[in-house]
């Protein structure tokens, strides 16, 4: 989960490896605030997978790459 200057830098860094998902740093910042914003609240409770998926989906991260249920043996 890294930062890059441009698509060209990502492509060069990946080389022959399969690409994952690329989002803008603006979207990343939105995601971080939605995901981590409650992390040190005194009454924090763990979220369900469905709640986490709703955060991703709410930011438009809806394709298979962002599917938390994939390969999940303990749904």
């Amino acid at each position, binding site marked *: 989960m890294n*930062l890059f200057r441009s*698509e060209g830098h990502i492509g060069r860094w990946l080389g022959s490896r399969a690409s994952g998902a690329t989002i803008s*740093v603006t979207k990343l910042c939105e*995601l971080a605030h939605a*995901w981590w914003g409650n992390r040190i609240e005194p009454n924090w409770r763990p979220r369900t997978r469905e709640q986490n998926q709703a955060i991703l989906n709410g930011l438009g991260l809806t394709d298979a*790459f962002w599917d938390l*249920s994939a390969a999940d043996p303990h*749904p």
Partner: protein
Amino acid sequence: MRYHFAMDDDDVALRNLTYRQFVELGHAPTVHDIAAVTGATPDDVWASWRRLHDDHALVLQSHTREIRMANPFSAVPTAYRVFADDRWWYANCAWDAFGVCAALHVDGRIEASCADCGDPITVHVRDERPDDEGLLFHCVVPAGRWWDDIVFT
């Protein structure tokens, strides 16, 4: 990926105390730090941390009785440093770097580098927005496999 429906209330309370101590100290607490605050034994704290680790509520070192990650915070030095709330923090990755500002509910400055060329990258976060919107984030591991090896992810 394991999910947390069975996480014990006492373990959640210890997890919340552990996070609070992390933020107050500016670094990861030890089992002895938490034992001193709670009155529990270090072994009891460690047993709770082990269960929390299994539930992905924090990440422990593999060979020592220490915290490796209390996401978004890292207990060990990384390439993602964040100046926020008048203190430097390490984050586990680019996502977590923004997460440090999010968790603390403050503006901040992220110091990192392009993973390809190594050029320094500085991003200020103000009012929950980055000041350099041209940067990109790339994640190699699909979401369903993030916890297969969270350190690699």
